[in-house]
């Protein structure tokens, strides 16, 4: 396994720390003119999602983590596992609840996701930034009310609940930003 010295540290680098795979979020070189060099590093623990700051000294090294991001197609959920497929090799991977986490509520069959593999197994799933999902439950729309202002909760086909404008109805397809859960508009088609 490769090791990185702190000179190699940069955002996005995947390293092992306290036996967990972590991703470097931010790296700041700090050095008083006459003092030792330090790197103040913000890391994300890829297992827990926790982001925290740790300081390293010039002489320290970290092992690289066998972590890679792969674009995959979401296939289906069998009740316990979520199944994904690599589009070129057709290789399939199953991810458990811990790995899928909050992404579960945005996963629609055949959508392209980023699956983070750690030692070859899914560690995290990132849904597409924008998804188009059908409204399956919401209060009836107010006919003719296309004016701005006012919204209501709507449950989408994947189980996610988002705020939509009052005129949306069951059966409409909405476009949503998965990073903040915001309604972007009615899907065109």
């Amino acid at each position, binding site marked *: 396994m490769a090791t990185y010295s702190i*000179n190699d540290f940069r955002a996005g680098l995947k390293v092992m720390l306290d036996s967990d795979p972590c991703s470097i979020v931010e790296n700041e*070189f700090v050095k008083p*003119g006459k003092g030792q060099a330090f790197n103040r590093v913000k890391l994300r623990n890829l297992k827990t999602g926790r982001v925290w700051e740790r300081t390293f000294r010039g002489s320290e090294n970290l092992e690289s983590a066998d972590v890679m991001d792969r674009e995959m197609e979401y296939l289906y959920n069998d009740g316990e596992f979520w199944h994904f497929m690599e589009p070129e090799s057709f290789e399939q991977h199953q991810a458990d609840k811990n790995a899928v986490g909050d992404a579960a509520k945005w996963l629609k069959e055949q959508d392209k996701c980023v699956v983070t593999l750690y030692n070859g197994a899914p560690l995290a799933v990132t849904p597409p930034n924008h998804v188009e999902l059908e409204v399956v439950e919401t209060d009836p729309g107010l006919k003719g009310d296309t004016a701005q202002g006012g919204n209501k909760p709507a449950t989408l086909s994947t189980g996610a609940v988002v705020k939509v404008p009052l005129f949306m109805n069951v059966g409409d397809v909405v476009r949503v930003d998965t990073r903040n859960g915001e309604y972007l508009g009615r899907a065109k088609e």
Partner: protein
Amino acid sequence: MSWQPSASLERLAQRAAINRQIRTFFDDRGVMEVELPVLGRAPVTDPFIEPIRARCNGATRYLQTSPEYAMKRLLAAGSGPIYSLGKAFRDGESGRRHNPEFTLLEWYRPGWDDTRLMDEVAELVGHLHPGVVVTRLRYRDWFVEHLGIDPHRATGAELAAVGRAHVEIDLDESDRDAWMDLLVTHVLEPRLPEGLVLVSDYPASQAALARIVPDPTGQPVARRFEAFLNRMELANGYWELTDAEEQRQRFETDLAKREGYGLPQYPIDESLLAALTAGMPACAGVALGVDRLLMTLLKAEGIADVLSFDTERA
């Protein structure tokens, strides 16, 4: 990689104007500008400053990490007050506030001590940045006020205990100076007020080339000061050590420290020691990072924004 400059042309024009103001400031005060060799036979022995090695006429030379030793030889030769505005080089230093080659303004005042020189640093910064608020602070009071600990007397364990409350790092208790530096960079520096802050009376263990003298409480302290501008380290000055024998001991202590940290060993600058033996006038000297000063004056995010070409584009 882009061929374009890192800084805007507007900022480069402002930079040129500030260089002219700096030169006028010293010219008006009868301080002579000197140019010093960039390639030197010996680098500094500072444990945490790494020189860049060069080959010249078949021999090893070092790109100077500051013009300090050459300027002290000029002082010993009777130059009187002098300043240098030029490039310095330090290996491994890259970041938002660091570039491996940078511009250092260094000046020496025979007959002055650190207190008087701090006033002149404030005058220079005030000249370039009218209206800047100046605050003075002793290193000890800085620690006592914010951390409730006396840095001169605290044990390594005490410093580490306070440090661990603020900083997550794998560092043992024996390295007192590292803990003090961490508390400065992680806790104290970010809490500094806006403007210029002059911190004096550094711990004796961080004297570098400053005299060690008892303070009013009898505590031996280094007559070293640092200037911070808007929470960024800007300058480092000393009431200079002039004793050749003590200077040699400090070189040797530095080299022993380097060995302890597994860092490369370097030759001692015998020319500097010979100059001190011949007699260097009592003086105070300071080195100020011009790029950092420009970052503040020109409201730049990073050092690259005030450099024609930063190290990535050089």
